[in-house]
């Protein structure tokens, strides 16, 4: 009797598992929208008044953002009735997978996320008539390949900034001006175990940037579009650096701030946000754009093509492009605003100058994050470049 029920139970369990598998497999399917979709999202109003009314009904907006990017949220909520819920992303890959879960309405995408999201149709183009503050955005930022497709704008620019070389002035000489301090053999030896590097495959571009300056014979012109030979050289450089690195900070800015404060890290790459936080805490650090140039990012607020709260999201994008919000986030994060009316509102009257908001020549050697693609992003069919997937795979190998 016991054997019979035990066997019966076993068959029942097997049947249940098979049933579960088939239900789940049948449910597998569906993805993002189609590319090149219209700006009209389900539920979005067709005039400013309609958007404002519908936004009050929606009552909330869910955002994926870089840390510190949402500002003046209380003012926004009281004006529009939309509560702001944010989720910090650790890297562009992280943000892409978050937005694809469908739980969020929008994302502050850097170039290496925005192009992919536009291609897959996960983000929708925007109707700039419904975003009044869009007209005040600098012309030089509009219609770039990372925030528009075929002349259609795909979001509202947020701000741009460089990845700094940051070091503690009590350990590293204050007049350091070159990336060599984290790439050259003798410098690696000197700071062994105290180097802090961003933990994402996009950092391979920083290695390529160093090779641009030190090994011109490789012929690297764009640190994100690398031929196999250039790519292998960059990876070899990173593998040489890896044993000397003290920490790879994973987009969790708290970890890096803490290690610079305690002196466990003394030199490395960083975002302006950490630099400002450390300065506020009176930690002796300095951050520079080295003479070889640097990588950077130009971020855009984009709306998810199946957003559940599209009206609140449109109002949010308009809010972040307003002079007040631009001034607050530019000073809080340490980046250059893209709405120049913000320059008059910053607490530091020289903020726009300090962060080169209008100085296009300063940005010429700042290479914005973008996605490596097989066709090298150019019209030359002869060259093929290493793909994003290979960058990612190589990063796992570099980390060891």
């Amino acid at each position, binding site marked *: 009797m016991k054997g019979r029920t035990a066997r019966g139970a076993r068959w029942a369990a097997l049947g249940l598992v098979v049933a579960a*598998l088939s239900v789940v497999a049948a449910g597998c399917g569906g993805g*993002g929208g189609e590319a090149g979709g219209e700006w009209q999202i389900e539920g979005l109003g067709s005039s400013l008044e309609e958007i404002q009314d519908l936004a009050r009904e929606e009552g909330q907006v869910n955002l994926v953002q870089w840390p510190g990017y949402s500002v003046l949220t209380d003012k926004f909520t009281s004006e529009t009735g939309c509560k702001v819920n944010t989720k910090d992303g650790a890297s562009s890959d992280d943000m892409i*997978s978050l937005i694809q879960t469908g739980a969020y309405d929008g994302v502050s995408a850097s170039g290496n996320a925005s192009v992919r999201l536009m291609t897959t149709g996960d983000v929708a183009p925007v109707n700039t008539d419904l975003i009044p503050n869009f007209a005040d955005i600098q012309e030089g930022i509009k219609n770039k390949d990372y925030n528009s497709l075929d002349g259609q704008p795909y979001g509202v620019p947020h701000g741009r900034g460089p990845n700094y070389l940051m070091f503690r002035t009590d350990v590293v000489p204050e007049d350091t001006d070159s990336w060599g301090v984290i790439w050259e053999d003798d410098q690696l030896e000197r700071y062994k175990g105290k180097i802090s590097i961003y933990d994402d495959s996009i950092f391979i571009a920083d290695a390529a940037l160093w090779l641009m300056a030190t090994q011109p014979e490789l012929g690297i012109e764009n640190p994100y579009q690398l031929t196999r030979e250039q790519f292998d050289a960059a990876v070899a450089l990173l593998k040489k650096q890896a044993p000397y690195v003290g*920490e790879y900070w994973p987009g969790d800015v708290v970890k890096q701030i803490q290690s610079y404060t305690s002196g466990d890290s003394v030199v490395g790459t960083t975002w302006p946000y950490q630099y400002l936080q450390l300065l506020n805490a009176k930690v002796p650090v300095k951050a520079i754009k080295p003479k070889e140039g640097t990588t950077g990012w130009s971020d855009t607020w984009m709306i998810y093509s199946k957003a559940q709260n599209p009206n609140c999201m449109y109002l949010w994008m308009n809010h972040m492009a307003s002079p007040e919000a631009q001034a607050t986030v530019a000073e809080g994060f340490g980046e250059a605003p893209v709405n120049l009316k913000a320059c008059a509102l910053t607490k530091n009257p020289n903020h726009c100058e300090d962060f080169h908001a209008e100085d296009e020549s300063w940005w010429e050697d700042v290479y914005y994050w973008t*996605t490596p693609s097989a066709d090298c992003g150019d019209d030359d069919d002869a060259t093929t470049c290493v793909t994003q997937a290979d960058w990612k795979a190589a990063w796992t190998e570099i980390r060891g």
Partner: protein
Amino acid sequence: MTSISFAEPPPRQSPGRRLSTFLYRHPRLRLLALLALPVGWLGLVYLGSLAVLLLSAFWKTDPFTAQLVRELTLDNFRRIIETPVYRDVAWRTVRMAVLVTIACALLAFPLAYYMARVASPRTRNLLVVAVLMPLWASYLVKAYAWRTILSAEGAINWALDPLGLTFNGYSNTGLWLVFTYLWLPYMVLPIYAGLERIPASLLEASADLGGRSLRTFAYVTLPLVFPAVVAGSIFTFSLTLGDYIAPTLISSDQFVGTVIYREYGTALPVAAAYALVPIAVIVGYLLVARKLKAFESL
């Protein structure tokens, strides 16, 4: 004489009563109804999601957009077998799990022995509370606290300073310390329960037969408590094998959990394929544990 009937009238036929009678007559159906929800959760939600994950190990991603392409391929398995870094990472993780288990066992045993066999009831209760208290604190709080302790200016280096030694806390050694700390309660409790189960009469009998304390310990206590140690080791081993938060914060080496966590976002098939490695290791471990009768001590 009229007969007075004391029998109660039959109860009214309501739907509830009909259902109750039906279930009474069909015990198997009753059991099914009772178990449907938890078994459904286990089958559909838990096993089902695991099955989807493993199914995606056979798919690939578009090299540019990183979207899932539902075409069958064995490339992911080929990659994790052929590329040396995945083997190194897996081996490093298993090694760490074993070391953490040994450290936890060595630390937990004396504590559990004291709690079970020596301490007065009041002390015992206090110790149980003390052992369980860290479980109330958030994982991240504990991990960040250890980051401070292990730092170059932290407590450990401060203590070693008079001896002229330095300790690089942000390393695998530091990580080993953190894991041992985090999972110690999971090792203490099963061993404590196992030791408590040993009847004092057995130990007295061993003494009557001439066994001194060390002999009794080695030949009576240890074999009886060993399954409980294995049961505790299941927790420490599996928790270490899959963890990705502590390694990210403390060490800069890669572990199975961190690799899967990083690959998961835009290279799901590789992450899924690699996830089979810890699953296989744990299944093997559990089969061994079952043989050693650890499941009766959980």
